[in-house]
């Protein structure tokens, strides 16, 4: 099966604090075609994201396919609030890289 990396399909892949207790992930596509390809592939789901980040599914507070922005968005609960002692990403902005290499099947 031919596949393509998510990094090749998405315009923006980012993570960022959503308040002090959560990190939100945005995968945004430039157009409907790539968005639909990824959305319909069902490769990116609440389950698969929990598996990728090795967390229980209930740590994912939101998972949304957001058609108006051609975007898939999910949010992870932090174990400790941002900037707590021992915590390494105050802005939550470097938690997305594992998404870049996700293989998306081409039909």
């Amino acid at each position, binding site marked *: 099966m031919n596949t393509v990396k998510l990094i090749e399909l998405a315009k923006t892949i980012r993570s960022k604090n959503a308040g002090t207790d959560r990190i*939100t992930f945005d995968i*945004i596509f430039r157009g409907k075609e790539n968005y639909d390809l990824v959305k319909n592939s069902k490769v990116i789901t609440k389950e698969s994201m929990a598996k990728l980040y090795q967390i229980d599914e209930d740590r994912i507070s939101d998972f949304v396919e957001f058609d108006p922005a051609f975007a898939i968005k999910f949010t992870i609960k932090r174990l400790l609030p*941002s*900037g707590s002692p021992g915590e390494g990403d105050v802005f939550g902005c*470097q938690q997305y890289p594992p998404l870049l290499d996700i293989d998306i099947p081409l039909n």
Partner: protein
Amino acid sequence: MKKKELRIICPNGHLGFSPTKEDSFWIGAETKPDYYCSDSGSDDIGPGPLGDDKSTSLYVWQKHDLEMMLLASREQGVPMIIGSAGDTGTNSRVDMYIQIIKDLAKEHKITKFKLAYFYSEVDKEYLRNKMNNGVEIEGLDSRTNLTMEELDGTERIVAVAGVHPYIKALDMGADVIIGGRSSDIAIFAAPAIREGFPEDLSYYLGKVLECASFCAEPYGAKESVIGTITQDDVKVTAMAPWQRCTVASVAGHAMYERSNPYYEYFAGGLIDMSDCVYEQYDEKTARITNMKYVPIEGKVKVKLEGSTKIGEMYIGIAGIRDPYTIKHIEKVIEMAREQVKQRFGENGYELHYRIYGKNGVMGDLEPIKEIKSHELCIIIEGIAPTKEMAEEVAMTGTRQIFYARLPEVKGTAGTAAFVVDEVLPATPAYIWSMNHTVEVDDPLELFDVKLIEIGE
């Protein structure tokens, strides 16, 4: 008669955090916007600045950004609004910004104008009384309701203002407003609501403008954007010659920094963006319609942010190149921890290691388990009740990496490379202890707006 349109310029998504880019600001200023608005704070910066009551931005950058906005707005005779002064919006930060405005007015011999300000800090006694009277301080984002113990432990609390104190300040005739901690969107929504524009459009205007050029593409922060509100729509235009506000950039930004792309909450209600319609209006402008304002049922709830001190902190840095040591890094750290334990026991301090080259950035969320780096950097945080103890915890935790007694290590002169052979004093360690809301009878009860006159 209702105004046809109102134009607001936002030069910076977090004023002072990194200097505003001047070219796009002056391009925007030349078009004579009706308001100059910017927020200057965020809870992104962690609990340290709030707890320690200091800015994380540099004073020279804060002054630089305020100077541009003050000069342009005073010359054009239109209001300037700053929210969440000095990163945290604490009282001392509001006072500091007022002083900067006074200094600038003197330096530039600006003629008399009115400055309104309000504080956001919340007295613990106020909340204690509420709690004693049965009012729950409700936790946000899965947090439990506030306990008396958590309240007692909290060092400093700010309330996040909605549009209310800003509208009051404008009613009082303010030319410049310096606000304490505020919802970013309120800073922009307040003037629009006050001038008779619909609330759903006004709040959305705030949402789209609050991060300045983050709603434009290509990516580039600290550039100015102008939002235009009419009775029917919101339009947002990039001012930098190389940036555009597109359907994609604006729709994408609308979900920025929020758990859920549909709703944005603030004191007084929420905006529902589920059915927003985005259109390309012209080359550099996107048009947005069909958002909904949903006012809160019952009393207004104001968000509270609180920071609790954990202890004094020192930071150590150790570099490792020896492949055998890298392979056994967890063992090395375990041995270093053991040395600290022998000196200080199990409790009464915190010692944290982050191993860059392994999972320093992502910690437990890191899917890559195998170390592929030929070198590692270890950051050691030592936290304790006193500076002396924190220094010793961090120093022991760092230097014992240097003395790691691995059985087969070849380099017996030291198993770590130091940039500096010392541990560095850091701002004390804090934790966000409050991400809650409190019900208020009057949306202004936590925000007392005052007016002063400045200038010659």
